[in-house]
């Protein structure tokens, strides 16, 4: 049998003593999560991911946060760096034990999603 990866074991450990999801979710301040996401910039455009409209959703699941987001274009060379940026930024929020970056390509991002008055 293939041994479990450390990531898998970490995820499994979250399930050992499950608590009511609402209680744990309430421990994470989602405003701080969104503020943390706003510190990650697309260096070419010069705007942060939230202003660009790249972050579609952020939700707390127990002590983890799942961030559903996209990139400006499929094959974006920034993919790994932005994923790691999201993880780094949200991990720093108090109460967050794990970050689940969920990269999606639908709906496809377009510049019309940039927040008005961004420039």
């Amino acid at each position, binding site marked *: 049998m293939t041994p479990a990866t450390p*990531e*898998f074991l*970490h*995820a*499994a450990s979250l*399930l050992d003593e*499950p608590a009511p999801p609402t209680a744990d979710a309430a421990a994470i301040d989602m405003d701080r999560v969104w503020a*943390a996401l706003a*510190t*990650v*910039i697309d*260096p*070419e*455009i*010069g705007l942060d991911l939230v202003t660009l409209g790249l972050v*579609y*959703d952020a*939700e707390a*699941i*127990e002590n*983890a946060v*799942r961030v*559903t987001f996209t990139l*400006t*274009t*499929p*094959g974006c*060379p*920034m*993919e*790994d*760096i*932005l*994923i*790691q*940026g*999201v*993880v*780094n*930024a*949200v*991990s*720093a929020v108090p109460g*967050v*034990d*794990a*970050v*689940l*970056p*969920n*990269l*999606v*390509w*639908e709906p*496809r991002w*377009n*510049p*019309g999603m*940039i927040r008005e008055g961004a*420039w």
Partner: protein
Amino acid sequence: VKARVRLAIDRSAAARLARLLRPVPPRKERSMMSSAVHSQPARLATPPAAGPAPGPAMLGSRMAPPFRLPAEHFAVALGFWVVGALGLVWAAPEIARGWFVSPRVVALTHLFTLGWITVTIQGALYQFLPVALGQPIRSQRLAHLSLVLFAPGLAGFVYGLVAGVSALTIAGAVLFSLGLLLFVGNLAATLWCARHFAGAADAAERRLTWWALVGATVFLAATVFLGVALSGNLRWGFLGAERFLALGVHLHVAVAGWVMLVIVGVAHRLLPMFLLSHGAPSWPGAVAVGLLWSGVGLLLGVHHALSPLLMWVIAGMIIGGVLSFLLQAVLFFRHRRKPALDPGLRLAASGIAFLLVALGLAPFALHAGLAAPHLATAYVLVLVLGALSLFVAGHYYKIFPFLVWFHRFGPMAGRQPVPRVADLYADRPANAAVALLVAGVVGLAAATLFRAEWAARPAALLFAGGALIVAAQMWTISRRRPE
């Protein structure tokens, strides 16, 4: 019973784990999306451990080449750019006289077309292929080797031309041609691997870029063979009176077949990305690829039996292809969300404007032929130095700082404030470079058209000043590191 209870517990835990890990569409779309959602499985990530930031090897995009590969190409290209710009000052009076076949002018033309434009395209493609086609270059070792053969070969070829050493010219031509053919083989193998793009989220864009790059690869190979024949003709003279026709075919297969098709294919992905352009129709780009492919293909196929009528048909197809590309570029610029153009985009826009000027001169140059060498020289100058060289220089301000940011600052994203790509260079010198380069090209073209030899060298000095600023800024950018 114990086993059943354990199985039930395991199933429950597995279901909870699956819920935690499952990919989900964005909340606002959940009601309307189901199986149509394309998402990659969510990755579990734990908070980073305390300590130094992980290096690029841990974070870098999986298909991006190592920094060294594009960087060494850009360094070599910038070297040829500086030598070419200084050589321009030296040879400016000959250009103004319309001596487009003088050894110095031929040497300069190759410094810009091969040393500056082609080497830059090679370095940029190594970075761009994974983005545009989802496929990295087939062999990085071959990519290094092709540059190792190419750079000294071109240097020897140029020196041989200027010094009048035909053996060195031919040896250099053979050496850099070998380097180019290695590149052609490597790129062809990469395109073969990337030929299946149906189902990709960006399949339509990939298809256009793929066909453009396939054409560019074929026409680069043809350019090399024509060039070797012309180089051999310098010593053995076997082309006779046909040498000017062969020179024209060589130039146009190189410019319209190799460089323009790469520009059309790459700009179709990069311009909307850099301009944040949205909603622009993309049919002009497809028309451009089709017309350039067929026009240059026809030129190659029938160049040995070119009637005046056929020549105009081919010219019409190529001009139509370039006009379609210009229309596409204008549509991208008009549909942009980015309000202000940075220096890089200003240079690229200047290149596009010079392309329009070159198209205006082309029919007159073709009609007059060798009877008006000034016109032919001015046409090639605006095309190579104004349109293509400045378009390439503009992309340096986008690609090179991005590369440095990606490898040096990217690993810090989300941990600490990081600069923007545009923060890696100063705007004011960059804008000065744009002004000097544009003024230099305009001055040189006017001096050549109006046979004003006295004005050629000052104009070349302006161009050289702009070129040196670009090179100095790239050097500064390459030294930027996190504090």
